[in-house]
């Protein structure tokens, strides 16, 4: 039975670890489907983590922290739009600027306001999100297999975990089944055609970026007000880039991106389990090398063992309305 509970705990952590990646990948889908490159997922996630932690510390309510994080991330998305949609600046440069700015600003402000080296104060139980126990989880635990699945894998997660997996079908429906989604995709593929049809390309891209900001805020809040009880320096640790890689690997589709996110989450969960474990034939793998596993996997996946990724046609190009 120990094997079974091992598997259950591995799946459980996979679901938890994948959560910020799923939010970020869905956020990325909106931006990139509209034709705007978004490498700034990383910076926005970090910003959300910082703002959510600080907000709920001062206001005493994690939901208010989340709200502030959403406002902060949407503002950053608008800044990205302002630079790269309105002023037609280089989209990648704009993202790099946002990422570096946020790494510096969050740590600097945390240090200035709280005096610790880039940490925010630990949140109390009222100030953070707690695990949600599904109904009857305790009493059903002893039911063979189904009980394990329900009580040990599905129950006892933070609210964000459930929200993340709920977001995926919604994103799928919005992007592929609504007229908004059709326009969104069209703007990313052929903006001049969309413009001819009387749809405002710039407004579409700003809308996509706004949704992107809302979604990425959840990823950050999950990190600092649910899984951890404070913000610390560079706590996003490359997750924004991992999510972007997952999205590209998933060919800009919510469903396949989800699979890629889960794969990353699983590698990370496995990486944590493998630390300090003696493997047969290989022996103990040094911690530093195991920790690099998700990053190596990203490179391998991006190298595309499943064929070349085709990005939306107009991605990265500012739209210039003809006169």
């Amino acid at each position, binding site marked *: 039975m120990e094997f079974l509970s091992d598997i259950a705990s591995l799946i459980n952590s996979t679901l938890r670890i994948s959560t910020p990646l799923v939010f970020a990948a869905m956020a990325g889908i909106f931006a990139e489907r509209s034709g705007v490159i978004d490498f700034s997922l990383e910076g926005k996630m970090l910003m959300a983590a910082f703002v959510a932690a600080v907000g709920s510390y001062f206001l005493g309510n994690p939901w208010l922290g989340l709200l502030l994080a959403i406002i902060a991330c949407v503002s950053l998305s608008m800044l990205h739009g302002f630079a790269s949609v309105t002023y037609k600046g280089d989209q990648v440069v704009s993202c*790099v600027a946002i990422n570096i700015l946020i790494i510096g600003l969050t740590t600097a402000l945390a240090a200035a306001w709280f005096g610790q080296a*880039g940490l925010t104060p630990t949140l109390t139980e009222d100030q953070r999100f707690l695990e949600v126990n599904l109904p009857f989880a305790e009493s059903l635990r002893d039911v063979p297999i189904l009980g394990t699945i329900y009580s040990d894998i599905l129950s006892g997660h933070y609210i964000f975990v459930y929200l993340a997996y709920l977001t995926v079908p919604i994103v799928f429906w919005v992007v592929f089944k609504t007229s908004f989604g059709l326009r969104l995709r069209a703007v990313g593929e052929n903006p001049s055609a969309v413009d001819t049809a009387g749809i405002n390309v710039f407004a579409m891209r700003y809308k996509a970026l706004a949704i992107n900001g809302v979604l990425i805020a959840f990823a950050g809040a999950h990190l600092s007000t649910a899984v951890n009880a404070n913000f610390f320096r560079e706590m996003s640790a490359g997750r924004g880039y991992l999510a972007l890689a997952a999205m590209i690997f998933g060919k800009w589709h919510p469903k396949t991106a989800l699979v890629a996110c889960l794969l990353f989450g699983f590698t990370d969960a496995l990486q944590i389990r493998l630390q300090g474990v003696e493997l047969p034939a290989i022996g103990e793998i040094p911690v530093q090398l195991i920790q690099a596993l998700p990053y190596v996997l990203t490179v391998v996946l991006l190298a595309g063992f499943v064929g070349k990724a085709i990005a939306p046609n107009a991605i990265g190009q500012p739209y210039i309305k003809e006169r």
Partner: protein
Amino acid sequence: MATVDKSKVPWWVSNLIVPLVNLTLALFVSGLFIFIAGENPYEAVRLIIYGSFGYIEGFAYTLYYTTNFIFTGLAFAVAFHCRLFNIGGEGQAYIGGLGVFLVAINFSFLPVPIVWLLAVGGAVVFGAAWAFIPAYLQATRGSHVVITTIMFNFIAASLMVFLLVDVIRDTSQMGPHTVALPEEQWFPSFEDLAALFGIKIRYSPLNISFLLAIAASFFVWFLVWKTRWGYEMRAVGHNTQAAIYAGISPYKNIIIAMCISGGLAGLLGVNEILGVHHKIVAGFPAGYGFTGIAVALMGRNHPIGIFPAAFLFGILYQGGSEVTFDMPNITRYMFVAVQGVIILFSGALENLFRPQIENFFVNRLNLKAKA
């Protein structure tokens, strides 16, 4: 906004006035951040100027930082001319440092100047090798070089910590660093050179790598603007389709541009290892690789622009450490944020006021011509 006839815009407007206006805006926003952090921005500026120019050692520190930023700035610029975003300067510099150390320690039986040459070569080769894989994947598989180079930064950091903890650590010491190189291999420092002339100054990390940085600037200028390679690289960056039509291979040029870029970033290891630490210390690239992005964008990816931009960031770094010393609310991360703002205004938002400024000067010149 009316479009401006580009040919009528004098060079000093687009290459001097516009960047200066953008820089001023960036510094103004940075001042706001310092204000939000609860300190006086005016006082911070005073401290920055004192810290970087006020005394000889401070100025030497400024030039030491300038050296690092020239290397990483040039690295970003070379790749950028081929339209590649090499965000991996940090990792390439880290691995470049490994190259310097391995060469210096293994060839210590050779005369010192030869060891130096080989070590510089080691830095270039190791840095270039670390850039090669992302370059190869970009060229053949279309994996976006931004993501792969960032991942290679993480991988380099893990790999180096692994090596420093388990493989090449100085076991007689506690910290994760290697043994020191033999003293005769250390680069002469500014302190030593001044002593030759009978001037006594206190320690600063400035060393002859500064001259290497200037040489590297000339090399990049020559390579990018005066050779066929440079031309092909820029052609691919400017318009890949046209370049292919002209018989230029984007595949080859992406790899060459990235490898040169990685090699230049690797040179940071020469300054840090032969010049300053004399051993590999965990995390020695300390963000210089990222700063190189800001330096290159501010310097408009030209060595002549990169030098003053690197110097400006040298002032910000050295003056910044003076600020963090005197102002408890400011940490060095504040200056990371300042870099972000500078990249934003001189990179992504560079068109914010460009048309207006160019219009203004073109109109004035027209008026003058008529009068």
